[in-house]
């Protein structure tokens, strides 16, 4: 079923359900022309896509738009978004475009734009790109200055070589790991990783598919519990990992066959990265678990809380020197490491967690058991946008005793629990998240939800 607002054009790019009333060929072409106009004249652009059938259609349009605005196109074909970002830097390209809808269902697609060095666009740059798109005044070069399109097949190997420089694969070889690739790009990456570095991974749902994925490509604990966790013990695996289609997110199943909450990816990585990182800052959004503060505290780190969404994380990154920061990310399992130049990358996250297991000599269940217990409740309710300010005001008054943060909706913190109410960017709903150290925060959650339902 098509949500009321499937097409979304914003600072993070363009996404929607492909087809009538949603994302069309024309959107892809016009955005590519805008991006070609936005970039410095003449620089090459790297292009990659996930395996969705609509990706081919969009990539043809994107190539045309980039060539028409005078940019050579380096086409990587079907690769993960992080591989595309890596290639931009390695090839000295002016920018890049990744076509893929990440954790969304097969009928979705999206375009993400990167600047030189493979970085996400800053808010200022993204605004300029949007303005050019909306004006549709593109800088077309004449027939003499058109860009050329060429294919490049070495991007994956160059990316893997960098991973092997950072992670000690000899230490990881002892783990038997089962990976659910969800018919996405992680299958291609891990198959090659296994060939080159002889890692004993077991891949399921490995074949890349364009139309039907084996299951919802979502890195939530629910999907892990349904699809991957039941396989871990029968396969005698030390851990299980599940990727979304373009491999920027990852989720974990323990060796005991339990689905770890997607919220645990970031604390595990913080635990691994902080001791070996000069930077001690962690950038996380307001909805991400408070366990992060505790883990950070163990290693002398500090958590900087930012609004939900990639663009807010990017703005926070750009407000600091790169060497100050250890990692950035969100509770969905999308994490960027400073060592890999702040790219959401599920593969580097998985290797980081395996490295932590190797270092501690403990299975992932035991590492998680060593963390204080937090429980989170999540919910949503319909609310007309015009009623949002009144709801937030009412909540501020009702929960005046806590520490309030209004950067993105309202978050209220007490020493052992917090809640966050924010407005969805895609639907007319508000999302409610409450977390408590110890048992689940039913009382707080119910109080907030009651207020929300009262307004809707």
């Amino acid at each position, binding site marked *: 079923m098509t949500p009321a607002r499937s097409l979304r054009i914003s600072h993070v790019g363009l996404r929607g*359900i*492909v*087809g*009538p*009333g*949603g994302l*069309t*060929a*024309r959107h*892809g*072409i*016009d955005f*590519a*022309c805008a991006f070609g106009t936005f970039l410095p004249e003449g620089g090459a652009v790297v292009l990659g896509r996930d395996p*969705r*059938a*609509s990706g*081919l*259609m*969009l990539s*043809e*349009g994107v*190539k*045309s*738009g980039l*060539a*028409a605005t005078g940019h050579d196109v380096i086409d990587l074909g079907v690769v993960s978004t992080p591989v595309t970002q890596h290639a931009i830097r390695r090839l000295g390209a002016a920018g890049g475009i990744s076509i893929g809808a990440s954790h969304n269902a*097969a*009928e*979705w*697609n999206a375009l993400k734009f990167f600047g030189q060095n493979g970085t996400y666009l800053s808010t200022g740059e993204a605004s300029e790109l949007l303005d050019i798109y909306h004006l549709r005044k*593109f800088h*077309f*070069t*004449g*027939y*003499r200055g*058109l*860009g*050329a*399109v060429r294919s490049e097949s070495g991007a994956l190997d160059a990316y893997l070589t960098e991973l092997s420089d950072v992670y000690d694969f000899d230490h990881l070889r002892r783990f038997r790991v089962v990976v659910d690739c969800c018919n996405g790009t992680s299958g291609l990456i891990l198959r090659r990783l296994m060939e080159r570095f002889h890692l004993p991974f077991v891949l399921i749902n490995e074949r890349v598919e*364009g*139309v*039907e994925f084996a299951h919802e490509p979502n890195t939530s604990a629910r999907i892990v519990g349904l699809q991957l966790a039941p396989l871990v013990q029968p396969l005698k695996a030390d851990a299980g990992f599940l990727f979304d289609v373009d491999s920027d997110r990852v989720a974990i199943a323990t060796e005991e066959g339990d689905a770890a909450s997607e919220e645990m990816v970031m604390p595990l990585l913080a635990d691994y990265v902080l001791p070996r990182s000069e930077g001690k800052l962690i950038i996380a959004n307001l909805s991400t678990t408070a366990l992060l503060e505790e883990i950070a505290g163990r290693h002398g780190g500090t958590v900087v809380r930012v609004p939900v969404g990639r663009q807010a994380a990017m703005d926070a990154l750009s407000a600091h020197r790169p060497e100050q920061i250890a990692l950035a990310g969100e509770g969905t399992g999308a994490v960027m490491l400073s060592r890999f130049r702040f790219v959401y990358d599920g593969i580097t996250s998985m290797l980081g967690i395996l490295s932590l297991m190797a270092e501690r000599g403990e299975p992932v269940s035991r590492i998680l058991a060593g963390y204080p217990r937090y429980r989170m409740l999540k919910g949503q309710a319909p609310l007309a946008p015009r009623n949002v300010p009144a709801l937030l005001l009412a909540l501020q008054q009702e929960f005046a005793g806590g520490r309030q943060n209004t950067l993105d909706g309202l978050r209220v913190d007490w020493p052992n629990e917090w809640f966050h109410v924010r407005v969805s960017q895609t639907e007319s709903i508000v999302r409610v998240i409450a977390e408590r150290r110890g048992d689940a925060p039913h009382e707080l959650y119910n109080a907030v939800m009651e207020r929300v339902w009262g307004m809707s």
Partner: protein
Amino acid sequence: MATAREHNLKIGVSGIRGVVGEFLTPALAADFAQAFGTYVGGGRVVVGRDTRSSGPMIEHAVCCGLLAAGCEVVRVGILPTPTIQVYVGATHARGGIAITASHNPAEYNALKLFNHEGLFFNSYERGELIDLYHQSDFHHSTNAQIRGISDDLERPMRLHFDRVLARVDAAPIRAHAFRLGLDAVNGAGSIVSQRFLREELGCTLEAIAVDPAQTFPRPAEPTPEVLGEVAALVRDRGCALGFAQDPDGDRLAIIDETGRVLDNNDVLALVVDAVLVRLPGDVAVNLTTSAAIDDIARTHGRRVYRTPVGEANVVERMKAVGAVIGGEGSSGGIIFPAVQYCRDSYTGMAFVLDRLAATGEPLSSLAARLPRYFRKMGKAAFAHGRLGPLMQAVEAAFPDAEIDRTDGLKLIWADRSIHVRASNTEPLLRMSVEARQESVCQDLYARVSSALG
């Protein structure tokens, strides 16, 4: 003044054509392809192109539009338009798109659209397609409806060659081992023509402008004024004749062994004669084409049908009357249905070599035996709204002529004719005068010009 306007983009019943860049954009090309894909209703669609530098860019846009419409794209790469048309028909595709601005300069590009038989759409279909484009009433495929792209780069050429070679006696041509000049304007014929003439017909080539990676070294239309280099080559290197093509290989110019570029009407006349020797049947040509065709058809006891100017018009009539050969003498277009209903330079090459091999005569003497006419062509700009009075003035100046109003105004006498018609693309009147005597031709031309003011 109307003619001062630059005609950088034209979207109309004959498709879309324009200067690449500000005018012919990726979005326009993709939209048009998506309209086309919607019109043919999905299925397999063939995409090929000539050698213009904008070809790949437009091709990506076209593939995007076709995929969005739910079509399965078969790319055939750089090929002459007739080869693409043969392939579309032979492989039972749903349709085809050739990315070429034909004889227009290098800064232009265009889409030529073909139906499931590899033919241009008829005028009613073209009207429907352009309406669909203007309404932006496209099919937008969902992810599950989107098909893929495949390549078939070798088969089209083979199919085309085989069809042509089945209609001539190739063995004597090979036995003659003709030395030929070739100017392919670095177009789609660059590779194909060399293979056809060398490997299929055993010729030795003095070839220029056969590098598809280079730009057009001369104006794209193969008119006598721009073929000096290949003409000199033919004369100086002892070639039996020379061939010159336009960038998409549908038009053919021929140079005799003395280095003289034959009139396009004479090229068509030679081929009509050569075909009628082998294949009995009638002929269809456009109104501007020379009366020499009528004379030749008469010697074979055959009839000539006249049509409005334009390949699609000629093809439509040829199909209706079952003509075995036809074309447009005014622009070097030879249409031979036994190969495909399209302008095909390779049919022309094969039949001329066939005649040369069969008669053992040099081309100049074959040409000299053609019915002799003198021709003069010209054009005159007119202000919008003035077309009717101008046509009436011409008609009034020649009250004794027989009149044909199928396309503009054609005035016909037993030994001479005048054809005046408005261009489809510019506010221009095209004049064409033909007569048995040169003085009569000059006199007629002067009188038409003065009638047009």
